[in-house]
């Protein structure tokens, strides 16, 4: 491979990763301000104008803190866990997310499988974190998180499978182009609802955050991690939130599609801006659900997945292709 193509590939990756890391940082302040709005208070407003520089102040505080490693912990896995969590959540952005027509770093034909594989690999970081800390509570939190993530991956995959039945393709760009006539959220609203429930559980967000709730297990699997390892977990968690919001907007809200009321001759790529605006909607929904719903107990969380959502998911997996075959609208 020529050195110039290597440099261009690196520039491509940095053009995606740096804005994503900024978006993740601002997601934290958006969450705090929105939660404050729901609770009729102000939120952070001291650091910077309207508290905009709060995430940078938080990052600086965490980086300057002392990193404490428990003496009986497995040092290699202790550091590897947060790194792998962050890397797998950032990898999801790199290959397959199309920011416009033909604007994916690699328009992979099996993009959805790649994304699901990465979300499955992300479980390892959580497992290593709790096990390497050599602490009962961290281990318990990590086992609970792992079991919840594995369980809800089934529901997530089932919802995505229904989209694949409708489109006949695993490629994100094809899925977006097919939604030019109608966004999938309209015919597939029940599927969107249980997809969103699965995404909330995958990202360990309220109401599925018992395993990392401060009143229950201190901080769950990341109890023993402090300073920079904790920053990596934090960044990985919010990066997953923004990534799943982007995937939700691609699968259900039409992705970068925009009403073509004028011909865009300018150098500005409006499609990326539309994708960004549509990504903000699920992000808002994440925080709205956090502000609104109480936390589920762990046994309720697992029962919800296996006894309530899974039968409906299986029923929809049978129903949707049957409708396509009965009305002769199979796309392949």
């Amino acid at each position, binding site marked *: 491979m020529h050195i110039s193509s290597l440099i261009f590939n690196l520039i491509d990756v940095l053009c995606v990763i740096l804005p994503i890391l900024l978006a993740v940082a601002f997601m934290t302040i958006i969450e705090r301000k929105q939660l404050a709005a729901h609770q009729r208070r102000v939120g952070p407003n001291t650091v910077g104008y309207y508290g905009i520089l709060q995430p940078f102040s938080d990052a600086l505080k965490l980086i300057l803190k002392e990193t404490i490693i428990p003496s009986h912990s497995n040092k290699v896995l202790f550091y590897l866990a947060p790194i792998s969590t962050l890397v797998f959540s950032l990898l999801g952005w790199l290959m397959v997310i199309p920011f416009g027509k033909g604007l994916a770093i690699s328009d992979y034909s099996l993009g959805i499988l790649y994304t699901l594989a990465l979300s499955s690999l992300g479980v390892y970081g959580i497992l290593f974190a709790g096990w390497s800390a050599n602490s009962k509570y961290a281990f318990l939190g990590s086992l609970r998180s792992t079991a919840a993530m594995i369980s809800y991956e089934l529901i997530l995959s089932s919802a995505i499978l229904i989209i694949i039945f409708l489109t006949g393709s695993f490629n994100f760009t094809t899925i977006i182009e097919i939604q030019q006539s109608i966004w999938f959220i309209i015919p597939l609203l029940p599927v969107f609802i249980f997809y969103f429930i699965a995404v909330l559980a995958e990202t360990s967000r309220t109401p599925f955050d018992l395993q990392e709730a401060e009143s229950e297990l201190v901080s769950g699997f990341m109890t023993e991690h402090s300073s920079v390892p904790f920053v990596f977990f934090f960044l990985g968690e919010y990066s997953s939130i923004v990534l799943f919001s982007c995937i939700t907007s691609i699968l259900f809200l039409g992705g970068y599609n925009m009403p073509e009321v004028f011909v865009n001759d300018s150098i500005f790529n409006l499609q990326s801006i539309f994708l960004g605006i549509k990504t903000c909607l699920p992000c808002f929904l994440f925080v709205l659900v956090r502000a609104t719903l109480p936390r589920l107990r762990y046994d309720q969380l697992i029962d919800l997945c296996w*006894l*309530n959502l899974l*039968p*409906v998911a*299986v*029923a*929809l997996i*049978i*129903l949707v*292709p*049957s*409708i396509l*075959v*009965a*009305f*002769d609208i199979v796309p392949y």
Partner: protein
Amino acid sequence: MAFLFRPFQRSYNYLYRTAHEKPVMFYSVVLGVIGPVMTIAIPPLRESFGYVPPPAVPSSYPLPNRPRRPLSGYDDE
């Protein structure tokens, strides 16, 4: 007329009780059964209303049903 439904009385009671006590399972099974029923029932119904399925996309080259014509002009000189 009631004697026709008597063999199914217990089944009906079971379904009624399950629909109230385990609604998720019951309605999931209902949704799941609707699928194959639609697949079997709807195509003949559509054909009876005049729907003509589109021609199938060809999956191979349509070979002509005649002997091969001898080629000329491609011999080496």
